[in-house]
């Protein structure tokens, strides 16, 4: 038996009613000594903040998941710890991006800065320098910053899924 897949539709501007009523943006306890704040902005093709976006992150090694809506400045925020290494793959978070105007969610990855394993990670290694730089968070004031560009010359790399 093979059934046809149900198509995707946008989350629309009012997803907060159903998806972010509860705080679910802590993949780790803020009290954890290794906890890091991970934050950034979701930006459109005019580099304007997307204030009705939704970011979901998944640490497949630690089995920890979270989501954050974006605020008036397009900002999202999580508390994370760096996932453990997994074989040849550098530590990373898998990320889905949802928004009004995005008819299907987009898949990207957040890698950690200064991580030696980034140099040999099979996915990062297959990308150009410019592409790779869109996937590595930046250390900033003791936190991690990761902006997501939906379009433009510095568009974030999105993966087929």
């Amino acid at each position: 038996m093979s059934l046809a897949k149900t198509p995707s539709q946008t989350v629309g501007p009012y997803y907060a009613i159903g998806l972010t009523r509860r705080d679910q943006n802590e993949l780790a306890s803020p009290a954890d000594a290794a906890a890091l704040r991970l934050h950034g902005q979701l930006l459109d093709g005019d580099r304007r903040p997307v204030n009705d976006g939704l970011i979901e992150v998944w640490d497949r090694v630690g089995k920890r998941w979270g989501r954050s809506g974006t605020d008036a400045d397009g900002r999202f925020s999580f508390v994370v710890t760096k996932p453990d290494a997994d074989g040849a793959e550098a530590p990373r978070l898998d990320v889905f991006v949802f928004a009004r105007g995005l008819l299907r969610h987009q898949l990207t990855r957040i890698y950690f800065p200064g991580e030696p394993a980034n140099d040999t990670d099979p996915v990062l290694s297959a990308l150009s320098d410019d592409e790779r730089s869109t996937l590595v968070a930046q250390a900033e004031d003791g936190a991690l910053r990761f902006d997501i560009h939906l379009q433009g010359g510095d568009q974030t790399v999105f993966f087929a899924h």
Partner: protein
Amino acid sequence: MTVPGVDPEIVLPDDPSFGPEVQLDYPGYRSTRLRAPKSPLVTLPEEFHAIDGPVFGDLPIGELDHDLTRQFAGEPLGERIVVSGRVLDEDGRPLRNTLVEIWQANAGGRYHHQVDQHPAPLDPNFAGAGRCLTDDDGNYRFVTVKPGAYPWGNHENAWRPAHIHFSVFGRAFTQRLVTQMYFPGDPLFPFDPIFNSVRDPKARELMVSAFDLSRTQPEWALAFTWNIVLGRGGAGTTPLEDHE
């Protein structure tokens, strides 16, 4: 077929070659212009699609989280409906214990959200959100009221057909789906760029629920049935014990 009054700049002709895929840069849906990514997608190794996604089996789901008509002291206005169905994969296997979340406008077509300023009344007895976990056969079930159609600013005299937003996780990470469930026979279908961003008419039908007399509750509620089919999430993702 041309439908009188349909603006060809807003709704493109059918194109079955899209299959189940939505057209990400659908021009008639204005918000896609600055938001739909333009660079080609990068393909990940096949094994990535098999990784497990989050599991929500231990979420503290409230006894009334699935019933949007009993979350306040009084009952919401509108046609009471039961919306139910199964979450399956492409091979027809049920996805058990998976989280289904919904949100919707009230019967007057207004969302309980500060950004929605459509001058239809808010309903003090309706927040418009629910969630549940599927059972062992992949069944989900919600009780709610039928949402109203509502105007939006996409183009002149734009109206969304009545719909309920659905978010589903599945088992593999890449099975994730967010979509909208529509109601059969809605006269607004030919005019809505979001609905028609699914270019294949057969695929669009998969977003439309069916009236189901067998699930109505006499003297109480009408019923609509809608099954949700998720992608496989990569070959071999289903544990052996699920092959029955």
